[in-house]
């Protein structure tokens, strides 16, 4: 898929901080953290050139556990914060990490517009179909008949949100699904996503063993996608709509956005020249 990895001078553990995660033992997010540090090591990215930005949630705690630059922001706003950073500092590698509540509920609007904006970001959503941090309420991806929360004792009755299909409709160029139970496969997807020169959405099935213990069954039900990666949005849409949302792999990959699409910069100017425009001309 990609050439032999460059000789890594830094090991995955060099990308980990000494801060101890607050996560429950067995939480899927541990494997995601490991996969991220492995991917960064394999890509041999200098630590100071990488930033991980997140919102709020168990999953969003991830930046402090890495030893790169990080920003643990506010609930739902990781994507705009990361977009501002990337727009201002395009040479940095910017990863965005969070949960399904953070990304698809409170941050849903930003998700759509980040896909459209197509900045070179890698957005990793650890989907456990529940709000872990606030102790187990339904999220947009929770199945309609899940009665595990006292807040929705009869289930939400609402159809689940299909993040990959929405990312496609909103214009994301790279859409993949991974599973925390397959850290090797996930590392591979992360490397491809980081290398993709546009917005890469990586939907990671990452069980919450505390509030959604039935997700342990994902070990059996999650499967590789049947076909190869497609660049055809119609075909991808069909698969994403019809599938069980448990298929892993690169689900869609559009040709990278054409080089620097920004129009030719206008003539440079200084602030003194700008100020001079306001001077009232001499009458004589």
């Amino acid at each position, binding site marked *: 898929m990609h050439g032999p990895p460059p000789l890594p001078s830094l090991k995955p553990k060099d990308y980990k901080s000494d801060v101890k995660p607050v996560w429950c033992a067995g939480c899927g997010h541990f494997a995601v953290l490991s996969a991220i540090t492995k991917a960064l090591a394999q890509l041999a990215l200098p630590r100071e050139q990488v930033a991980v930005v997140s919102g709020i949630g168990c999953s969003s705690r991830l930046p402090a556990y890495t030893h790169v630059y990080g*920003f*643990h*922001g506010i609930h739902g706003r990781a994507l705009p914060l990361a977009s*501002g950073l990337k727009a*201002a500092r395009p040479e940095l590698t910017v990863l965005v990490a969070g949960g399904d509540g953070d990304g698809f509920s409170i941050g849903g609007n930003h998700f759509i517009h980040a896909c459209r904006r197509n900045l070179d970001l890698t957005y990793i959503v650890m989907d456990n179909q529940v709000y872990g941090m606030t102790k187990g309420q339904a999220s947009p991806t929770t199945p309609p008949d899940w009665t595990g929360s006292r807040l929705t004792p009869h289930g939400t009755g609402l159809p689940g949100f299909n993040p990959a299909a929405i990312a496609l409709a909103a214009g994301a160029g790279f859409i993949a699904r991974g599973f925390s139970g397959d850290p090797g496969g996930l590392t591979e997807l992360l490397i491809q996503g980081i290398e993709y020169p546009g917005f890469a959405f990586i939907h990671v099935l990452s069980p919450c063993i505390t509030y959604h213990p039935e997700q342990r069954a994902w070990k059996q039900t999650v499967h590789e996608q049947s076909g190869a990666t497609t660049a055809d949005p119609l075909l991808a849409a069909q698969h994403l709509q019809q599938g069980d949302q448990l298929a892993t792999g690169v689900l869609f990959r559009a040709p990278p956005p054409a080089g620097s699409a920004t129009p030719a910069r206008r003539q*440079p100017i200084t602030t003194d020249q700008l100020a001079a425009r306001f001077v009232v001309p001499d009458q004589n």
Partner: protein
Amino acid sequence: MKIEKQPVTLPPERSAGRRRESPVDRKTDLTATRSLSVSIIGSGGTGVVTCGKILLESIARMGLYALLARSSGPQIRGGESAIMLRLAEQPVENLDDRFDLLLALDWLHVDRFADELPVGADTIILHDSDRGDIPPCFDGATQRRIATPLTRLAEATENGRANMVGLGLLGQLLGIPLETLCTAACDLLKPKGETIVGAGLRCIEQGYAAAPPAPRPLPLSAPVVPPKRWNISGNEACGLGALQGGIRFVAAYPITPASELLEWLAPNLERLGGELVQAEDELASVNMIIGASFGGIPALTATSGPGLSLMMEGLGLAVASETPIVVSNVMRGGPSTGIPTKSEQSDLNLALYGLHGDAPHLVLAALSIRDSVFTTEWAVKLAETLQTVAIVLTDQFLGQARAVIDPPRAPGLKGSRKRAVDRTHYQRYTLTDDAVSPMAIPGDAGCMFTADGLEHDQRGTPSATAADHQQQLDKRRDKLTGFDYGDDWAEIGGAGAICLITWGSASGAVREAAERLTRSGHPTRSVALRLLSPIPEAAFRAAIADASHLLVVEQNHGGQFYDHLNARKLLPPGAGSLARPGPLPLRPGEIVNRVMQGA
């Protein structure tokens, strides 16, 4: 053309605020501000604003000063509008109590403006005799009227327009040399093409010739060698101040009346090597600028009340993570959607107290159009120096008005971020003498840290301990209260036992009221605050020391600034409040009257 009643002559020396009705008013008759106030009104498409801009530029080129404010109807585009012009020998940035001259291109929907256009018995009303007579809301207000067939005169010229005829007429009455008027018109109309310029100039000449025969020299004397001056709008002034302060990244969502600021910034930022991103909403805007600033690029967003409300959680994140950002908030009438196109100083409480938790930050207010350059530049430099949030309050009146001003001054503060140098044991939130910690930015090797809105220890690691919370709260407060803001926290004028305290755009009317009171034998000082939080309390107490009568003046309903000062126990007992909501601008006469009533 027909001239009704007596022939028109302008008063040889016009004193601002001349009012005849009450003995109280008469006391206010004396003032240093010699000025003339002119309004032009007309329905959509009559070209009121074009006339105003040409007049302003002509007056500027004559060497005088002027303010050009505007008001428009509720239509999205092309509705009736009014321009309000005040010209003077000295810098002037507030409106007078009433108008000396009113030019009506037509009278459609004029009742919507009537209360914004106070006229008196000696106001001259010029109107187009082809467009109906003076409506009841103005009739009887004035003894002086000049009816001219502007439309018919315009029709004599191919592509001719009545507004340009009216402009010529007005120019003649104001004593603006025809040549000055024509060169200014030529420069401003140029983008519309040669045909329009040619027709415009012919109409101006026609209007000029049609003015009543009596010579009407401008009662204001222009200097022989005019000093260097600028012609700028408040929104442009904010934008320029931001760029001079070093802002190179802006993210924002459009909103009236801040959009012009963004539209001015977008192309100019690009030419400075920066960028403006149109965000999907204000939640995104504020977080985008936090991200850019975390990346080391000074960043700003601009908005108005509804947008500022949405940004509050993000502002708290910037405060807690000590990421410098600037928010330029151009206030409009509130609450809710309120009066989007009109001015009010009513977002003060939100700017001061809208953040949850104990979240000290800077709140500043520009005192005038000219001061918008200084205050915004200062705000950027303070935010960068103190690694905090600075909210700069301006308003629709300041933002959308233009003025001829003396070149603005620049803050002395260098205003750069304290950057990390220690690359071995870097601690992002380490305690220092000035409570400002060195800041690393991505790319700095050896200083990797995670910025956090969670409470943290000096290193930045999340912490819920009482000791860390207390320490970081103290640090974030002390870096602001311990800083020496010098003399720039306020503009203090005059001396006297009467003390008028104000902030932001009310300052112009307050300063003029203080001058009028002083000249009428009631020595008055004015204290106009630019830095509203934290207020340098010792300096404030010194500024109001020994005052026997204090009045806090602001344009809102609740007396928000008055409450803010009282909450900090900065006012002596008995200090009064003059809090009047928008949309009508505060006028010097009403402040004088209030003082005299209280005296």
